[in-house]
């Protein structure tokens, strides 16, 4: 394949990574922003979403779309409920103390991972996409007789991959509207801005925390349900997304949703493109270097506020 078509293909793969990463990282970001909790177990909620999607789809007969749609709704709700329960049983008991929550969520990471291994085994599990038409993509060439369009061999994507991008955009826009236009979103932002004054206005802060922790985990689970027809479910799949999500949240500015989305696009796209042209390892190295530079030259992140 020539360079141009190859780049388009890489960009498309990058857009899918970016879309999925944005969902995961926004989940991590709202948990940090509102609760000041660094959730090291976030990748495991992502993993749980994928494993549940496999479990649900393998137990529902009929057209693959039926099981998948069910998983798309049920898995994030289940994972969100597990997270809210973990908040109630663990994080609340240690009073959301910043250092202790890191240790506690590291513990949670291993508990969730090992429970999944013990229950579902170590095999990678496929999930069938609800629809998966291959569509060839055209390319344009300026030849001897002007511009012409042709269909390079191998330049194609699937309807499902495009649908993943659309779904991520829809969810993120919905989340944005929820946070800025609804009463519940207003209450969450007030809690984030001033915990004591939220209490002094009758806001049950601990209930809000459980809700936010569930919402963050639910977003990670939603991302993994979307990804699992492309990637397969496995009990160790949470590691890479966790690392990338941390990179994105730091670059975007801790707790800033717009910053997180911009950084997810930046990291996701470059990860996709560099992986296609060079190697996935180089992509991770460059992302890590970028974090180091951000931390040195703009520690508050692209859109974060400087610490007072």
């Amino acid at each position, binding site marked *: 394949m020539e360079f141009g078509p190859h780049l388009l293909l890489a960009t498309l793969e990058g857009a899918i990574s970016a879309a999925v990463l944005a969902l995961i990282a926004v989940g991590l970001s709202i948990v940090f922003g509102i609760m000041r909790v660094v959730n090291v177990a976030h990748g495991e909620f992502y993993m749980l979403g994928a494993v549940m999607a496999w479990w649900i789809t393998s137990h529902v007969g009929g057209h693959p779309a039926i099981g998948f749609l069910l998983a798309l709704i049920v898995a994030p709700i289940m994972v969100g409920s597990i997270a809210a329960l973990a908040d109630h049983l663990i994080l609340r008991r240690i009073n959301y103390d910043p250092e202790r929550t890191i240790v506690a969520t590291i513990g949670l990471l291993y508990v969730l991972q090992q429970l999944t291994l013990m229950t579902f085994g170590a095999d990678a599990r496929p999930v069938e996409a609800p629809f998966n038409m291959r569509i060839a993509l055209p390319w344009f060439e300026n030849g001897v007789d002007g511009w012409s369009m042709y269909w390079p061999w191998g330049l194609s994507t699937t309807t499902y991959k495009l649908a993943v991008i659309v779904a991520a955009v829809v969810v993120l826009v919905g989340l944005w509207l929820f946070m800025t236009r609804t009463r519940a979103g207003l*209450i969450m*932002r007030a809690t984030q*801005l*001033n915990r004591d004054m939220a*209490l*002094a*206005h*009758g*806001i049950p*802060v601990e209930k809000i925390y459980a809700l936010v922790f569930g919402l963050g985990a639910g977003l990670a689970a939603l991302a993994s349900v979307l990804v699992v027809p492309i990637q397969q479910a496995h009990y160790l799949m949470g590691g890479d997304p966790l690392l990338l999500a941390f990179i994105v949240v730091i670059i975007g500015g801790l707790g800033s949703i717009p910053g997180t989305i911009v950084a997810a696009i930046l990291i996701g796209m470059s990860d996709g493109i560099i992986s296609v042209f060079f190697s996935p390892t180089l992509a991770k190295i460059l992302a890590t270097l970028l974090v180091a530079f951000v931390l040195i030259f703009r520690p508050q992140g692209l859109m974060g506020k400087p610490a007072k």
Partner: protein
Amino acid sequence: MLNVKNIEVAYDKVQVLFDVSFDVKSGEIFCLLGRNGAGKTTALKSIMGLLPLKTGSIQFDNQTLSTMAPYDVPKQGIAYVPQGRGLFSELTVAQNIEIGLMVKNSGAATRERVLDIFPRLRERLKQRADTLSGGEQQMLAMARALSMEPKLLLLDEPTEGLQPSIIKLIQDVIVNMKQAGVAIVLVEHHIETVLTIADRVAFVENGRCQKIAEINDLKNNPEEIHRYLGVN
């Protein structure tokens, strides 16, 4: 109406309040006076349930505040304007007031009444709280508290750093609340304000409530105030 009985409060291991007691009646302006670090802010936070009591109890309207969940305290009709205003900085003026209205599920009528008191805020409803001037921020903090339709109002240095015209406005609002029967606990350094509007004054020193005096007794004897505040 408000009954603070023998409370002791500590931050971790450092005890800050020792055996503090006072009561405030409805329609009364009760003033806490004392130097920086005496424990006045700590006393107000304790009433709001934001700090746990080591001993003692706080009653309001026959309810025990000190055993309630902190988020239930405001629902009893208690509004708090903290030192430094405590606005939701990234929310707009309208949203800050909306959060005040939520406490009692008050509607548009309350909102309009509050905005009539502070017309400057009506012109800035869509503006973010942290872009307001200092005086406007204090008006917003007061407006947010009034939108809770409180029976008890806790004010921590509400005139701090404000110009005289705005101090006058805040004083007038406080006096109007008092006349409407609201009980008011006021932490205030501005002695003119204290002498103008307070009914009774408690002197707080090193976390102890040293003396409670009627304002009329102090008016004849201003040296006493100066002695407790440590100003010449």
